[in-house]
């Protein structure tokens, strides 16, 4: 039997600061997580200065606006933030809503009708000549851009990946 540490899907474990400190194979590091948001969406690296990052479940990364000794035997710390351990990392809808307002890259803006259809879970084919992959999908509300959630742009199609529990069909406005 190996004594090498493995990811235990039942407990929260803190992400290592950097690759040099990584003990659990395949675990993302704090530096990589922050770098991903900076590279992909143009957030400032200081956005997450006060936060700690944890893994519970395979590749499920949580952001916590405080700190505790590790590991903690609890049901949740902060909010689910990012999925790693897959080919393309995927931000959560809630993380995009909370932090995506400051994004400067890979944000696609939708008009009123498209935004409502996206929220209802429909796939769309909006004009977009940027990167493929996971995008922040936003619209204008109360005079400013606001992120709605995450879309997957592939093959000239924008797929709504709003979770079922967050989808809504809004009343039509004439």
């Amino acid at each position: 039997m190996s004594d090498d540490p493995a990811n235990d899907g039942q407990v929260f474990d803190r992400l290592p600061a950097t690759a040099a400190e990584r003990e659990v194979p395949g675990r993302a590091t704090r530096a990589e997580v922050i770098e991903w948001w900076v590279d992909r969406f143009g957030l400032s690296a200081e956005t997450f200065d006060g936060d700690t990052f944890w893994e519970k479940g395979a590749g499920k990364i949580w952001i916590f606006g405080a700190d505790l000794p590790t590991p903690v035997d609890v049901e949740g710390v902060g909010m689910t933030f990012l999925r790693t351990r897959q080919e393309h990392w995927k931000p959560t809808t809630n993380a995009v809503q909370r932090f995506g307002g400051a994004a400067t890259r890979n944000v696609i803006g939708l008009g009123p009708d498209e935004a409502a259809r996206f929220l209802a879970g429909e796939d769309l084919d909006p004009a977009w000549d940027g990167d493929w992959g996971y995008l922040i999908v936003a619209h204008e509300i109360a005079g400013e851009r606001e992120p709605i959630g995450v879309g997957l742009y592939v093959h000239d199609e924008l797929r709504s990946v709003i979770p079922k529990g967050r989808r809504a069909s809004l009343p039509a406005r004439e």
Partner: protein
Amino acid sequence: MTPLERYESLVDDVEAFRAACDRPLPSVVRVNTIKATVDRVRTALDAAGVAHEQTDWHPGVLRLPADSPGRNWPHAHGWIHGQEEVSNLPAVILDPDPDDRVWDACAAPGSKTTQLAALMDDSGLLVGNDNNLGRLSALRHNAERLGVTNLVVTNRDARNFSLKPLGGGGRDADDGVDAFDRVLVDAPCSCEGTIRKNPDAFDTWSLDHVHSVAGVQKGILRRAVQATRPGGTVVYSTCTFAPEENEAVLDHVLDAEDCRLVDVDAPLDGVSGVTEWDGEAYDPSVEKALRIYPHHNDTGGFFCAKLEVGA
């Protein structure tokens, strides 16, 4: 005798009380200041054609006279949360500061927990506990929708809540939690005050249930006082009228733990706690508690008390 008739000797205006209990409640939402401002929410509701009016006591609590709270863009963005008007009171009374360590002992489904997070500007440490795992998923869903990041969710019996999972109790790291600055005990109760929202509230009512839940309430409130640092604050609230679940619980805890009642600075109308009921006399300081009947502010019924833990 219905449960409400049981309390008519305590009520200042029985006719108004009965009439209010028969009226349904309007939809009410709280603005989630973690994600939006009151102005931005009102602009967005206007644009969506959703009528709304500000309550006169809290700019972030809006009545939606003609709508359900869940079918509009502000809700989809997590800018608003459906929450009965009077249930906004205990978190306001607890009044946590950013960087406080706060325990919400009976947190699910999380309306008051997320309100506490917003009052803390989503900083410091907020522990949301509930003994019911099913209801905890609703708490987590609400907290994530509203963008809360400072919340730790635990699934324990609050009566013997341990600080060890938070690194406390002197076990290991010095960043663990040894005591809380503020605790909210929004206790499980017989829910008599929710009759306007939930007409089935009396179907399961019995005096045995009142006495049984009062025992649980005493256990939770005692543990809350024990887990609070000297000089810290505990707020006790229920949505019920029974003195057995309200003043009698306070009387028990005043006797058993090192704490005292302090005045509730309430922005809503109400009356003082009662010092005698059904042949029992309670500690005179329970008068400092607040009883809110449905006709006082056209809301649900509520009970709220504030305790200072002995220094």
